[in-house]
């Protein structure tokens, strides 16, 4: 399957959509309208939940804010629905931004619970605020009009709704394939990964959250002017859960899943309403929600992935072309070989009463490979985390390239030119090798939300793609750039992490136990790669406990034991040092 095939399929789908009102009955068209309106929310939720990993139970509240805002502007104050759109979108995005700033730093399920909380609070508000019709709602909302042409019938507003859905899908897929979109897709890999790439995770989460709210607000605006009447019911907590249901049924990782999920849930609900009275007379209202919830639970038990990803697995892969040569990305000024690059001065880190790192000082000079070694529990990992900003030192100072980074957050240290790898490999398994390495170029590129959504970033993307391919070739993984990272064996995954780090054009490469879990051949390959990088004047700091791997590779070694520096020197000196032997072997008999 090539790109052309995908475009043809999309065109065919569009043509079917355009013909639908001609063929279908008015009732079916109305149903389609609801599907379109719900799709918008579900697409936003797919972006937020499936891509960004933020589960929100409160999207219905955003739909409600926009619907009430436009109803207030148009029905109660007699202004144009278009002004209502402006007001609704601005208000929704504003509320979302405030809620996001307050809650998006929350961890895991705390974050989802907070969405339950504000979803409920806002939902209760609609029925209880004076001037918004309380539980009776607001009626006689005017239709949307284009010039003097009012979109009154369901077939008329149909084209507006589905036009917006199609546009949102197009822009959404563009965005996901851009610099910002890749950052969003990295969010599920955890904060440590995202920040290590020089990406401000909180900012990306906030942008994703506001985009989802924006899509919900579009949905709310369309809903208010299509049904011409609103009441608190469609925006309450149960609707928030229904939106989540749509997203999960469709397949949260995929934007199209939002549309498919919205269609399935809406049609299913509709047929449940049709058939249940036949089975159980008089109790249909109650059974509807029971049947519905039961189906949802069954679905989550049997197909957690959702429908679109399950089907997509059987479709032929899209064939892609190897990236073409492009103008190189800007490089950072590299330090001259031999110059002082990193200076750790009296670093100390305490956890309560435990001193994990105690008054450790050492220097790294440009162009060398330095290893920090030590037995288990020596404080290597803590030292590493302090260097990369994952932890702050309790005392002491860390200076990188002449600037103190002691208090800097991880992403700023990464931007300053420190690129790292992880002891437990952190890759995005569902992204290709090329995309994983492109994540590394985040700090060297600049295109934002609009450039990504409207594809104004082509030149930069081509450069980033070419840079990523070059780094893949440099580490020897250049033959299959479109393979999924999760399919690689562990040894190659570590190498891929190094390629990603190299794509950031670092001044210092910091490797956390790169040889852990590797087979002998893989270790040899890794050592060879690191030597070739040193030959290219890259400075490397390795934290490792595999002595054999370290001894044959590095220029100098710093030995830690019980949090303190034991000694420092060239490998041969360290090998014969009695203190080191004692620390590793428990004393010479």
């Amino acid at each position, binding site marked *: 399957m090539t790109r052309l095939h995908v475009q043809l399929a999309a065109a065919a789908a569009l043509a079917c959509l355009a013909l639908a009102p001609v063929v279908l009955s008015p009732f079916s068209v109305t149903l389609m309208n609801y599907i379109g309106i719900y799709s918008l929310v579900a697409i936003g939720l797919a972006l937020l939940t499936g891509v960004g990993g933020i589960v929100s139970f409160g999207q219905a509240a955003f739909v409600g804010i926009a619907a009430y805002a436009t109803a207030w502007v148009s029905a109660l104050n007699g202004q144009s629905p278009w002004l209502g759109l402006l007001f609704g979108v601005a208000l929704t995005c504003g509320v979302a931004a405030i809620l996001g700033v307050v809650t998006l730093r929350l*961890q895991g399920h705390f974050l989802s619970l907070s969405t339950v909380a504000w979803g409920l609070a806002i939902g209760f508000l609609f029925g209880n605020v004076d001037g918004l019709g309380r539980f009776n709602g607001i009626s006689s909302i005017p239709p949307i009009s284009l010039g003097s042409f009012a979109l009154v019938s369901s077939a008329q507003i149909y084209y507006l709704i589905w036009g917006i859905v199609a546009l949102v899908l197009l822009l959404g897929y563009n965005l996901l394939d851009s610099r910002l979109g890749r950052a969003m897709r990295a969010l599920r890999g955890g904060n440590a990964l995202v920040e290590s790439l020089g990406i401000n995770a909180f900012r990306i989460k906030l942008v994703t959250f506001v985009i989802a709210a924006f899509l919900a607000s579009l949905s709310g605006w369309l809903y208010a002017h299509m049904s011409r009447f609103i009441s608190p019911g469609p925006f309450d907590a149960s609707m928030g*859960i229904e939106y989540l249901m749509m997203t999960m049924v469709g397949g949260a990782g995929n934007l199209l899943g939002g549309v498919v999920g919205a269609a399935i849930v809406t049609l299913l609900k509709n047929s449940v309403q049709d058939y249940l009275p036949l089975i159980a007379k008089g109790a249909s209202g109650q059974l509807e929600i029971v049947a519905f919830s039961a189906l949802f639970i069954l679905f989550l038990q049997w197909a957690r992935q959702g429908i679109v990803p399950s089907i997509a697995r059987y479709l032929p892969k899209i064939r892609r072309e190897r990236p073409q040569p492009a103008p190189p990305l800007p490089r950072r000024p590299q330090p001259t070989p031999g110059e002082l690059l990193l200076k750790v001065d009296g670093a100390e880190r305490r956890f309560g009463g435990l001193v994990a790192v105690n008054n450790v000082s050492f220097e790294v000079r440009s162009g060398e490979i330095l290893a920090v070694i030590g037995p288990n529990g020596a404080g290597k990992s803590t030292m590493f985390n302090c260097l990369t900003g994952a932890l702050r030192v309790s005392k002491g100072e860390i200076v990188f390239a002449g600037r103190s980074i002691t208090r800097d957050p991880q992403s700023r240290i990464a931007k300053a030119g420190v690129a790292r790898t992880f002891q437990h490999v952190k890759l995005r398994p569902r992204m290709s090798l090329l995309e994983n390495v492109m994540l590394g170029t985040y700090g060297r590129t600049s295109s934002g939300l609009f450039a990504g959504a409207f594809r104004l970033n082509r030149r930069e993307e081509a450069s980033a793609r070419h840079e990523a391919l070059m780094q893949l070739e440099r580490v020897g993984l250049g033959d299959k750039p479109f393979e999924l990272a999760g399919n690689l064996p562990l040894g190659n995954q570590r190498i891929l992490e190094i390629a990603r780090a190299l794509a950031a054009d670092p001044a210092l490469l910091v490797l956390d136990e790169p040889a852990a879990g590797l087979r002998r051949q893989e270790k040899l390959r890794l050592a060879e790669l690191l030597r070739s990088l040193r030959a290219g004047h890259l400075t490397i700091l390795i934290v490792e406990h595999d002595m054999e791997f370290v001894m044959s590779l590095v220029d100098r070694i710093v030995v830690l034991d019980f949090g303190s520096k034991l000694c420092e020197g060239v490998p041969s000196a360290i090998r014969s040092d009695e203190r080191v032997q004692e620390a590793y072997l428990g004393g010479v008999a």
Partner: protein
Amino acid sequence: MTSDIAAILAIDGIATGAVYALVAIGTVLIFTVTRVIFIPFGDIAAFTALTLAALDAKRFPGTGALVVVLACLATLIEVISLIRSGDIRLLPRALLFYLILPLAVVGIAWLTMRMDPPLAVRLVLALMLITPIAPLLDRIVFRPIADGTVLLLLTVSVALHFALVGLGLLFFGPEGVRTEPLTSFSTEFAGVLISGQTMLIVIAALVFSGLLYLFFDFTLVGKSLRATAVNRTGSRLMGIRPARAGTIAYLLGSLMAGVSGILIAPVNTVFYDSGFLIGLKAFVGAIVGGMTSYPGAAIGAVGVGILESFASFQSSALKDVIVFSLLIPILIWRSLASLHSEEEIEE
């Protein structure tokens, strides 16, 4: 607001909070043992009140039918999974626990009811009928996805709540109920009238939390539950079955929720869907305790009760808005607190 009104509101709040506290403790219990945030405990509480009201009115409560339906479903699922895994010899045991026991409970309740039992017996019957529901739901709904993420379990739990609300309407009807007060005693303390019901609620909350504490600290089963909460794999290696620990936790939690339902029924009118807000507010309390601490959850729940009481004095329409808005700062505080501990665990 005068000090008199403040005192009345505070006492009212403590009584409401004590009811939430019982549900909150059940929520923490389930979460620590199974990682499920069991939102439907509120529904269990409401169903207990509705069951008691039906018993008072000499009608056989819909809970009976609900238990029978769930027992049949659970048995079916258990039998299928046993046959699939080839553990046929476990079948009699499965039938005993998932079919015969629940049906026996319903049967006993049905027979006893014909004898026009006194209030005390009706209370026991209501609790007996309600306790099988959560363990059966656990078998049907949660056991197949026990390895899922907390978020998946939470999503399923929320969906389950909606199913239960629908079932509640089906089995109990739309009418609200208010049961007879358990006592007509009242006393005056520092110039404020305190009803016997309020005192009963607080005493019951204290007694049940105390019993739970004794159970956890002084019985082997209690200790095995705590072990499962701390480390599932580890306790499994010690011969504790997580599924069994989960069932016990659900039984205990249902009992707590049932008691809270009985206590709240004479004070507030309870509808089939009243459970959601009880469950959520109890849950807010549980979060204040970090979802791990029983005293923390109880204190948090009482705090929510007092807050709600004062909020409804300010604006009865917006009381829920106020309570849930205040959850956000609490969540932030808890998240910061737990972030700190996570960081230390990682090292």
